């Protein structure tokens, strides 16, 4: 039996723009709003009118999609999609 390990095929890194775009797509699908109405700098609480439970739903969906853990305290003060994308990007 060979001990040689096959080199891992690395996943291409997402750019911040790609991550932001994926977040916007997921958010539009989850909250059933037209994707075209969402922009990276939008305040998602105001734009979507969501409460804390809905924010947690979005967090769970994002964690599941990106395969990461994002402690909710890291979202303290985060209100726009681009900053959210930055937080997620730091965990990818």
């Amino acid at each position, binding site marked *: 039996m060979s001990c040689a390990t096959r080199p891992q095929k690395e996943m291409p890194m997402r750019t911040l723009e790609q991550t932001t775009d994926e977040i916007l797509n997921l958010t539009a699908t989850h909250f059933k709003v037209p994707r075209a109405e969402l922009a990276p700098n939008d305040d998602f609480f105001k734009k979507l009118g*969501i409460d804390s*439970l809905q924010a*947690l739903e979005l967090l769970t969906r994002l964690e*599941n999609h990106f395969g990461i*853990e994002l*402690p*909710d*305290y890291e979202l*303290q003060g985060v209100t726009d999609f681009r900053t959210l994308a930055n937080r997620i990007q730091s965990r990818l």
Partner: protein
Amino acid sequence: MKSFKGRTISWELADGVLELELHREPCNEISSTMLEELEKFAAALEALTSHASAAPEGPSALIIHSARKEGFSAGADLRELYHRSQELAASARLASVRKFLERIHRVMNTIDASPLTTIAAVHGVCFGGGFELALACDLIVADKMTRFCFPELRLGLIPGFGGIPRLKRDLGNGVVRDLLLTGRSINATKALAVGLACQVAAEGEALRVARSTAAQVRKFDRATSAAAKQFIKPIPHKELQREIEIFCEVFTRPAVMEGLRKFVESTDALPYLP
């Protein structure tokens, strides 16, 4: 009592499986009314299982689930706790809280020690007292959108419904400290990885998976299952009692009432984040 339909919960025994449904709006906050009905359920559970080995139609498994789309349970009804506390003098306030804790502990202990194989089918929010109810069960089947959390420290409290001893019994101390001391929530994938959940189900499928698991459990001899459970799942009585004492010590601090007031009056979209 094989079936019951109350204001906050209902239960039914069918085909050897007892199903307890939580259905209080908005997200099964455990209030004094729910406690009264859970006490009824605990009494029914004991009555239904006292002759379990003799009655062929008796239950083999218990499933606890929620009919609320928001989740399994958001935990204790903090609004009721705050408003009731405001009506009482400090000494009466503490006595009232201690009585509530002792009563909910008896319910949790009855579920924990039940000879049935118990399954919590959880989804969405599984916080605080709701998380503690799930921890009293033998198995947790989690919908992939579930979030587990002990937010109590954010309010200056500790979990008081038996959660800490049960979490310590079931998981590594590192996970216990992470959940307790950061107050952060974790998702179902993480819960599965640390051994908190036994299975993760697709969205909306936790109850179906729990029923499938109960059907498997039903194939086994009930007395043998009960003996195995008793051997592998001791009830940490001393630590549970100590938890009540610590909760009561902490509860008298002025910061707790202030934390509860802020939570109750908050219009913040994320009131659970300090």
